[in-house]
């Protein structure tokens, strides 16, 4: 007896589900009929999609410690006016920011990202029919180590030179 009940239960559930979907599809149909009946003017069935392809710029701002510049201020200057920002905004928590420059304004776009007095300005050349590019400042770790080593060597050499002269 109990087994039968358990066995029946899924079927009951399935039935209920079927009922529910039947009800909802009926309702949808009813709504469609209502719309067609009431909204006599909504008769456009064709669609027309036009497109213009432009270049978008995706920025990624990070401190040289690797930490992203989250919620830093972004100022974008168009080539025709370098004193007032063309657009301002804020990076997301990963230091990312996306903007679509006006294709009517080819030239070098200046982008400044700043936070707490830290920041940088980069120059992004965007011309007619610009191809997707990427760029940015920053050195690899090896370059930094080598540069530091050169400077330290120079300073240590200075120290040795002067201490040698003394004695």
């Amino acid at each position, binding site marked *: 007896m109990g087994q039968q009940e358990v066995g029946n239960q899924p079927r009951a559930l399935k039935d209920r589900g079927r009922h529910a979907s039947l009800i909802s599809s009926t309702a949808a149909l009813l709504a469609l009929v209502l719309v067609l009946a009431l909204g006599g003017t909504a008769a456009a069935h064709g669609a027309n999609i036009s497109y213009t392809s432009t270049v978008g710029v995706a920025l990624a701002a990070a*401190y*040289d*410690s690797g*930490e992203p510049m989250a*919620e830093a*201020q972004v*100022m974008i200057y168009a080539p025709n006016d370098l004193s*007032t*920002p063309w657009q*301002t905004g*804020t990076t997301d928590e990963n230091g990312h920011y996306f903007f679509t420059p006006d294709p009517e304004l080819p030239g070098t776009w200046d982008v*400044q990202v*700043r*936070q*707490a*007095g*830290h*920041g*940088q*300005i980069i120059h992004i050349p965007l011309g007619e029919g610009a191809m997707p590019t990427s760029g940015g*400042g920053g*050195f690899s770790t090896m370059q*930094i180590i080598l*540069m*530091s080593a050169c*400077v*330290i060597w120079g*300073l*240590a050499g*200075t*120290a*040795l030179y*002067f*201490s040698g*002269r*003394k004695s």
Partner: protein
Amino acid sequence: MHIPDGILPVAVDVAGYATAGALTWFSLRKIQQQENPQEGVPKAALLTAAFFVASWIHIPFPPTSVHLILNGLLGVVLGYYAMPAILVGLFFQAVMFQHGGLTTLGVNATMMGLPALLAYGIFQSRYRLGLAQSDTWTAVFGFAGGAVGVGLAAAIAFTILILTLPGNIDAEAERASITALTVAHVPLMVLEGVFTALLVTFLLRVKPEVLNRPGDVPVKV
């Protein structure tokens, strides 16, 4: 606390070069007056190297992170040599790593050099107070010099940045992040103070002639 290019108005950059030039001239004159001006050069060169790499050592103080500055330490150990040392170190940092910038070199050199000279004044005042022979007091004055160097540099940076906020940014958000960064320098003050105290204690035991320069006229503070 290196202010990069493009953050400050040109007038501030120029004023920074003027003050940095005056401080460097003053320091070089003081060095020239010493008995053997070249004596301090090896020490200054080595500490310039330390200062140069210190800005790569990041210390996280959530929500932000700061890097070592060591200007107070340079002031305490080098005296007047600290100013040219900081200027040279900042120049290399700006050219090589874009830590700071060439237009703001004067501003940054003043921001770090002036507190370094003050730290030297604090450290040397132990002679006037007759405490120079004591290990403990040397450490205490070293701590004060190291901490004041960083603290004053952060305070100068804060003032300059707040007073020159451009009109076209969200001033409220920028002010909040500048304040957060400045507050994060309080634990750095303690850290560099302790570091300076350890270094002067070590030097006093191992090579006391590096520190004992009672003949130098301390900066009048």
